[in-house]
């Protein structure tokens, strides 16, 4: 059995990763609405994922307002796929 990625294993971070896995990119507000997280919560998990190199965060100004776009990196996409495979193996091995 492969090792479970603890960064993705946390439910909030899993939700962020899952959303970014199926959407090309999304802004902070969109992810907040979709995951139901608070600003602070999303922000801290976002930082952890960014530090791990799983997501790319682009900060810019749109109409003089700060705007943060998030996107899954290649490493993040691979890690998410790997995580999914490992979790499946875990449950596939459960006795009936």
């Amino acid at each position: 059995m492969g090792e479970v990625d603890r960064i993705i294993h946390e439910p909030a971070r899993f939700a962020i990763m899952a959303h970014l896995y199926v959407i090309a990119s999304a802004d902070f507000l969109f992810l907040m609405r979709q995951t139901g997280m608070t600003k602070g919560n999303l922000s801290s998990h976002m930082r952890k994922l960014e530090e791990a190199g799983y997501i790319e965060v682009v900060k810019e100004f749109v109409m003089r307002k700060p705007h943060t776009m998030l996107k899954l990196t290649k490493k993040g996409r691979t890690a998410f796929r790997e995580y999914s495979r490992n979790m499946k193996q875990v449950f596939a091995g459960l006795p009936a």
Partner: protein
Amino acid sequence: MHVPEKKNMTQDIDLRELEKKAWTSYFQDGLLDIALGMIMLVAVLSSTLEAIDITDEVRVAIYIPLIVIVPPVIVVLGKRYITIPRLGFAKFGLHRKTRNRIMIAGLVSLQLMLLAMLILQWVYGWGSGWLGSVIVTLNILAAFCLIAYLLDYRRMYAIGILFAMSEPVMFYLKNYSHTTYAGFIAYGIPAVIVMVMGFIVLQRFLRR
């Protein structure tokens, strides 16, 4: 966007649902419904102008700009100033882009079929009367079903049925009841229903 692997079914279903939920959240503002209702209101205006003997050229000059400009402006400005500040912004992947392209190609094909029918009607008189009405009804229904299916926008099926029904209703009222309110009844009722539906959805969206 990543195209999910075929063998990974459990993950596929869940992730597809997640993507669909994110995608359909953009239609929770009711703006498209309001814009479509507006198009039908323009049809009411056009039939009213016809009833008071305004020439075809003037009618076309009035309603074509209204159809081409007003509904897209409502959608674009509404998305920019109402939806995105509340819902956020997301770029969807290749899967959605492909579906949108198929939808546009399908709609263009349906419009070309309709145009061909109008030309045949104009040159040979073929497809006039009830047959023309049936073809237009089916064309409208097909267009809305295509949009509803490819955009995953379920309300569009209901809107399509309402709009498609307006054509045979108009045909019947014009040819058999001879009422002067044919346009109001045939186009006005579905327009009002769709717009009310849109405003209710918009109000719910704003309250959230």
